[in-house]
């Protein structure tokens, strides 16, 4: 299934910037970055659970927020893209 992960991490302090980098790195391990703090992850239920647990460990619930949008397996007709930074279709033919 496709899960959209978006986050806001408060970066006014040093630790905030650290958290931001960690969150980005974690998300990147599970999916691809489509916009600055927006990731599209194609994961199964286990991987999704893992990702959630790991992210919860990193963020500071007082200052940051993370949102997960579950788009299911038939996500292809739910996503439209305009403009620059076309993303890779991870389930289509991958030929480089």
């Amino acid at each position, binding site marked *: 299934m496709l899960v959209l992960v978006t986050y806001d991490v408060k970066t006014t302090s040093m630790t905030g910037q650290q958290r931001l980098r960690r969150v980005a790195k974690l998300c*990147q391990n*599970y999916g*691809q970055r489509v916009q600055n703090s927006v990731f599209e992850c*194609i*994961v199964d239920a286990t991987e999704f659970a893992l990702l959630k647990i790991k992210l919860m460990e990193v963020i500071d619930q007082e200052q940051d927020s993370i949102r997960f949008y579950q788009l299911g397996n038939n996500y292809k007709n739910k996503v439209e893209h305009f403009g620059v930074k076309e993303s890779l279709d991870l*389930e*289509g033919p*991958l030929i*480089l």
Partner: protein
Amino acid sequence: MKRLLNTLYVTQPDIYLSLDGDNIVLLKEQEKVGRLPLHNLESIVAFGYTGASPALMGYCAERNIAITFMTMSGRFLARVIGQSKGNVVLRKKQYLISADESLSVKTARNFIIGKIYNHKWIIERMTRDYPLRINVAEFKEISGQLSSIILDVRACEDLERLRGLEGQAAFSYNKALGQMILQQTDDFYFRSRSRRPPLDNMNAMLSLAYTLLANDMAAALEAVGLDAYVGFLHRDRPGRASLALDVMEELRGVYADKFVLTLINKKIVNKDDFYTKENGAVLMTDEARKKFLAAWQNKKQEKIEHPYLGEKISWGLVPHAQALLLARYLRGDLDEYPPFLWK
């Protein structure tokens, strides 16, 4: 059932594959040209000569992602395999059978039955779908010949004779294969199989399709804990994945041949996609290989019902299903190996 993950094909020879976290990063002259999470992949096929980082190879070996290196022309160079998976008992059983001709033949003949049966149904389907465009009488005759060879194979107790029967069946089928090309017949024809090098367009595509299929098959066998190099029908030879070639026999027709025919008959490829070298070898252009691989990936996603398991799976999982059934047979859970009988 296992989930079918994606395969990454790298067709540019100057791309280096490296690892970053759980991502594969593709570098071209130190520039990043792509990055994708590895958990979406089950294999990586690289054409050309630049390599992959040891860290990436280690990561993939641990997580059962197959990396295969090929030359630009699609000839197999190397495959990265990690620690042997599965159990020794199963592999010992495999070696035991392989060492004994009379035991080998019992398994080997089921591969061949599957192969001939599938060839027969390709031919029967053609007579049903295109009665006006092919020579129906000849096709029916070939189909009849194949039916009678299947009966001989069923009773065959000798490996040499089995190979003879297979050759006979292949000869009959090859006569029909050329006639199944319905479009662009000036540029695509099939007279006989030529390899190393392939000498015409059709053979060039068949070679690539068989190589891809053999890699998928070998990876599937390794995944269930079998040794892809120890075969029953194909004898041992260094560097040859004999068991993969064995199990692949039954899929050659329905998987690879039909795929190539579709490319021609739907005009997905045309004569401009090929060029001839001085030694007569026919190769696909880089663009054509991309089209070929894209179509191959799409074919893998297509769903069929597995005739033995009765479950809907994608074509790409058929090698895995067959590997699983073979392992079950070797363990003694099944009385006979059930070949993939397509209809």
